């Protein structure tokens, strides 16, 4: 009959307790190794979550965006923008797209007036699909529809900040505001957008710039306001995530044909960004996992060394145990269990240290770090595994001692 696991655990723990200082020093490598595993996995998870949340806010993974390609220098005869007919043509060439929305530039601000109040606002000409693509619609009134677009209606949908600045508590629906030297009827107020972002000044709304916008039918802007409104970007939404890549390639071909083979425009999908992001964090992950592994490896070697020293110190004890009937397997299990207990203690200390570091780091870099149960389990398993691997050699050494020599050891 062998010494039970329970006995080995009790014997191992009491020995670790007797040599507290040595135990702590011994496990430093394991502490650092498991700590960095926890910290890195949580930070990477946090970054990924944040990116995904951001992309979700920006229209999700099926979104495809077309921009002017700034790396390409256009010649005089090439147009770097789309005219209204071209946009309608492109729309008709991609019936497989779920939504299609070109927008006029969004950085030019116009003065808007209502009843003595004024507010500088970027006015964007859009297609009705805007609300579907951006997954953003009105909280009051209605959004611009296809009838408004075809009829070049002078209607406007305003953001919550615009509404507040121009109308205060007054109901804006049906009222007329002046903007871009024309009179527009307010038909809707967009839903308020909010995403918390933490910084030194406290909490801020990262999406406030959206609440300051106004939207009008693109046709109205292009035909009635100015013929110098240039459309250099539009957005398309594929029906499915798997449809993104074929649709993106088709769009690239259409755009090249429209510009005689010159890459005047570039096409980018949110999926590309997600893939790029997970590639970036993967590299980060791999580098730090390697660093953790080195730390665990060095920690393991230290533990092998200390266990060999411990066994030398306890040679006589091993002899006594053998004389009273301990078999080699009993001695082997006793020391292997003790090594595993040592690394487990290190692992648990590392996890606790990692969690407290994450707490500080998370608030320092304004990020919600994510600690999963499976990261903790992984760290525990890894630290126990290090003990198993690096404890085998000392345990074999101890169990192979000759009882007579061990008893005589001074």
């Amino acid at each position, binding site marked *: *009959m*062998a*010494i*039970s696991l329970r*006995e080995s655990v009790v014997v191992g723990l*009491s*020995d670790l307790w*007797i040599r507290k200082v040595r135990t702590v020093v011994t496990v430093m490598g394991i502490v650092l190794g498991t700590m960095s595993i926890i910290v890195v996995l949580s930070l990477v998870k946090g970054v990924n979550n944040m990116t995904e949340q951001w992309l979700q806010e920006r229209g999700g993974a099926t979104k495809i965006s077309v921009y002017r390609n700034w790396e390409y220098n256009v010649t005089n005869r090439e147009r770097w923008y789309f005219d209204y007919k071209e946009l309608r043509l492109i729309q008709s060439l991609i019936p497989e797209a779920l939504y299609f929305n070109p927008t006029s530039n969004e950085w030019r601000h116009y003065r808007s007036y209502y009843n003595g109040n004024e507010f500088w606002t970027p006015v964007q000409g859009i297609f009705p699909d805007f609300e579907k693509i951006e997954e953003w619609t009105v909280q009051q009134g209605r959004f611009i529809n296809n009838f408004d677009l075809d009829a070049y209606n002078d209607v406007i949908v305003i953001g919550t900040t615009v509404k507040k600045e121009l109308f205060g508590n007054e109901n804006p629906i049906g009222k007329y505001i002046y903007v871009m030297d024309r009179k527009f009827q307010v038909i809707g107020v967009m839903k308020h957008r909010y995403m918390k972002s933490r910084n030194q000044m406290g909490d801020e709304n990262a999406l406030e710039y959206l609440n300051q916008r106004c939207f009008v039918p693109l046709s109205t802007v292009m035909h009635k306001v100015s013929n110098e409104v240039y459309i250099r970007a539009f957005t398309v939404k594929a029906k499915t995530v798997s449809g993104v890549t074929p649709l993106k390639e088709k769009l690239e071909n259409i755009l090249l044909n429209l510009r005689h083979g010159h890459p005047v425009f570039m096409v980018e999908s949110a999926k590309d960004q997600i893939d790029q992001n997970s590639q970036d964090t993967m590299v980060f992950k791999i580098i730090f996992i390697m660093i953790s592994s080195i730390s665990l490896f060095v920690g393991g070697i230290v533990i092998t060394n200390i266990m060999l020293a411990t066994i030398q110190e306890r040679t*006589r*004890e091993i*002899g*006594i*145990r*053998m*004389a*009273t*009937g*301990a*078999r*080699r*397997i*009993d001695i082997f299990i006793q020391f292997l269990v003790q090594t595993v207990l040592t690394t487990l203690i290190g692992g648990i200390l590392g996890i606790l240290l990692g969690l407290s570091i994450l707490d500080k780091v998370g608030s320092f870099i304004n990020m919600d770090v994510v600690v999963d149960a499976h990261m903790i389990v992984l760290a525990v398993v890894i630290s126990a595994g290090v003990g198993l691997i690096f404890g085998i050699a000392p345990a074999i050494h101890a169990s192979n001692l*000759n*009882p*007579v020599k061990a*008893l005589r050891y001074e």
Partner: protein
Amino acid sequence: MQDIVIRTENLQKVYDMGKHKVTALDGVDVEIYKGEFLAIMGPSGSGKSTLMHILGCLDTPTGGNYILEAQEVSKLKKRQLAAVRNQRIGFVFQTFNLLPHLNILKNVELPQMYSGVSPAKRKNRAIEILEQVGLGDRLRHKPSELSGGQRQRVAIARAIVNNPAIILADEPTGNLDTNSGSDILGIFSELHDQGNTIIMVTHDPRVAGKANRIIHIIDGKITNGDIA
């Protein structure tokens, strides 16, 4: 005719030191009977410790046979030797060889822990034995808190806890003062009176008074086997 507990036939132990060989045991034939109290005497380096180690299954002979209770043990595997040490042999050492960080109760429980006796049972057994050697009130003490004589009593308790066939004692009084020494010899006499087989290596002439038989060993050979 008494039962034979131990018989050795032409027992040899040669240490290979590389350049030359050292013969520690040179053909030892000995028969030890059940219930006997045998003293082994001899000068240092005579081979008596080697003989003890082989009889105690801590070491294996390089030649000859060792039969313990009708079983040939000189050719057993290490695992089987461990079981023999555990079940059939009780050791008492000159230097006590107690585990210093365990209390004496745990020390006495040790052999039964390795033979797989349940914690409750072996605790009761250890208390019973420690009471028998007069240490029932010191169960939670560490060996360092006891006198030499008390420590040796703990070691004796540990040796007999599994009811072994033989008790081997290697100079059990060697590290003790005269009073404690006779105390310990008294315990061995008691154990002998209860029917235990005791083999003791000693320099102590007082043992002669207690033993049934003394054998002398010189240069790895037994020189006599008189009945005392």
